[in-house]
């Protein structure tokens, strides 16, 4: 099968959906013909679809998402880009109070089919305002769907589902994943929300991960295999809906679970998954739940500082060994 990058996979999803449905349009800062997106995801799309549908905006995050809400409830399917995940804080009212609640508050009258795409993740030395992982904020908001794809295949399939759906989707990407290659079929497909994917089968320990951490979990699993430990890697793919069944199913099989997430440990994704295990699979556990997450600090700049806070393979391997 052909291989393309995560970035190209996202671009293909946007291009195919824009060709398929004239209601789909893009808006965001520097996404148009002059820059093509800070991470080049939208590069070339303005040339094909024009400046009206690939719309550069002023630096106004709240109005970018608000405009997407207003357009979505009046028949369009906007895809808004927020240049860095940290900057979603500027648009939080429009995401959490407007997009997420507009259907519910109005008794189901509104359909709000919009996508907000943004990159999270540390590792490129751009410090505290451009590096944090804030997925947990959004999985805490009823009314939103949250995607966290780790591969080009999932990124393309989930983005197509997100654009075609009828609800607001918060679509998390990861800066380090953009150049990562993976197999993506040329033919049409979508990936449904709420269905996790077992990226590697194993019998001894379940490692639950998302986004870039899936790759670190897979590398760790490879190394642990040499030491006789069989690791199963469950990639959640979406945090809302959360595929609880897949987590429970894997834990039933292995009896041990390590949760790996790039966000801060306190109040984060890993805590929610640990709670699911505690509520629904406690009887199957042969060892305590372990979490590998960032410490509760902002992301620092200097490379040795930054590397210190990002969960790495060493930490994952240590956690796995602690439970087997």
């Amino acid at each position, binding site marked *: 099968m052909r291989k393309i990058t995560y970035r190209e996979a996202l671009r293909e999803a946007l291009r195919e959906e824009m060709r398929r449905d004239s209601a789909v349009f893009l808006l965001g800062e520097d996404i148009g013909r002059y820059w093509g997106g800070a991470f080049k995801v939208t590069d070339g799309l303005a040339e094909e679809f024009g400046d009206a549908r690939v719309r550069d905006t002023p630096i106004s995050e*709240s109005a970018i998402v608000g405009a997407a*809400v*207003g357009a979505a409830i009046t028949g369009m399917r906007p895809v808004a880009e927020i240049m860095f995940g940290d900057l979603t804080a500027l648009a939080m009212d429009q995401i959490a*109070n407007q997009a997420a609640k507009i259907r519910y508050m*109005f*008794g189901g009258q509104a359909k709000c089919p919009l996508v907000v795409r943004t990159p999270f993740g540390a590792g490129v030395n751009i410090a505290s305002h451009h590096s944090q992982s804030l997925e947990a904020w959004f999985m805490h908001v009823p009314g939103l769907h949250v995607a966290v794809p780790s591969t080009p295949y999932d990124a393309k399939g989930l983005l197509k589902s997100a654009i075609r*759906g009828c609800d607001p989707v918060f679509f998390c990407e990861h800066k380090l994943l953009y150049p990562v290659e993976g197999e993506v079929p040329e033919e049409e497909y979508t990936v449904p929300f709420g269905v996790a994917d077992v990226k590697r089968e194993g019998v001894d320990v379940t490692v639950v991960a998302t986004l870039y951490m899936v790759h670190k979990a897979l590398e760790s699993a490879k190394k642990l295999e040499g030491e006789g430990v069989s690791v199963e890697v469950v990639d959640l793919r979406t945090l809302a809906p959360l595929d609880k069944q897949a987590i429970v199913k894997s834990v039933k099989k292995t009896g041990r679970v390590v949760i790996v997430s790039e966000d801060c440990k306190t109040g984060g994704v890993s805590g929610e998954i640990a709670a699911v295990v505690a509520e629904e699979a406690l009887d199957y556990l042969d060892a305590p739940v372990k979490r590998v997450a960032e410490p509760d600090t902002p992301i620092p700049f200097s490379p040795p500082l930054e590397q210190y806070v990002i969960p790495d393979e060493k930490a994952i391997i240590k956690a796995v060994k602690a439970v087997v």
Partner: protein
Amino acid sequence: MYRKILTIRLFEEKVYELYGQNLVPGTIHLYAGEEAIAVGVCSNLEKTDYITSTHRGHGHCIAKGADLKRTMAEILGKKTGYCKGKGGSMHIADFSIGMLGATAVVGAGLPIALGAGLSIKLRGTSQLVACFFGEGASNQGTFHESLNMASTWKLPVVFVCENNLYAMGTRQSLAMNIENIADRAAAYGIPGKVVDGNDVLAVHEAANEAVTRARRGEGPTLIECKTYRRKGHSRVDPAKYRPKKEVEEWMSRDPIGRFKDRLLQANSLTKTEISQIENEVAAEIEAAVKFAMESPYPAPEEALEDVYAQEEK
């Protein structure tokens, strides 16, 4: 227009009365005193045009053509209300008449109106959006972001600032160093117009100009309507921060009485016709109250519905 303006007043008086009888859960923000604005603006709109509204939104709904029964039922939290009891007084919407809903976050409706305007432009229809907000909202960042973008993209949006002089209890002079919000239009390169918000014909005329400009594709206008709440900010507010003399002065400029006098003077309506309208409106409101009172509350577990649309396109 007289019928509409009167309907809003009598509706709000009835809501106030029901609140006093403990029949309205939560709080209410009455539009009484500001009726001329919603009616003056919406009298220029088609059913397919959009409006966005605020926590003080009953008047916007009625002016856009919402059904009184379903509006009253929503305020009472009933299943037959516009939002099946999920929204209440601060969140009424009727998408079938282009009423895109009331948001209770001050200033949050402006970007949504911007988006509806963008949608119109992309779809190439002749619709437009009227965006209602208060002078307090004009101090939010969303005001700046939305007017700037709407102007840059020449979107068909009419921004209607209802300046009732107080953001909750904070007098305008404590929150900004200008007298006219309309002056801010200059910062976006769009027309800004101050109008007597208690004069329905003046509002109608100003809105007509803005609507014409928007439909011609020339972009947004900021209209500032000077007005005054007849009551406090919300039901619990006796509005003691307003000087007595100021209150008296504004009460003498009440939009309903002024419009009625003008209609009579111009022989547009006779006294008999006016009292006939008044009787009809009162009966309509009584029917709305009866409908709302007799309607059931939603079943508690309906709280779990309408979070997601779910179904695929």
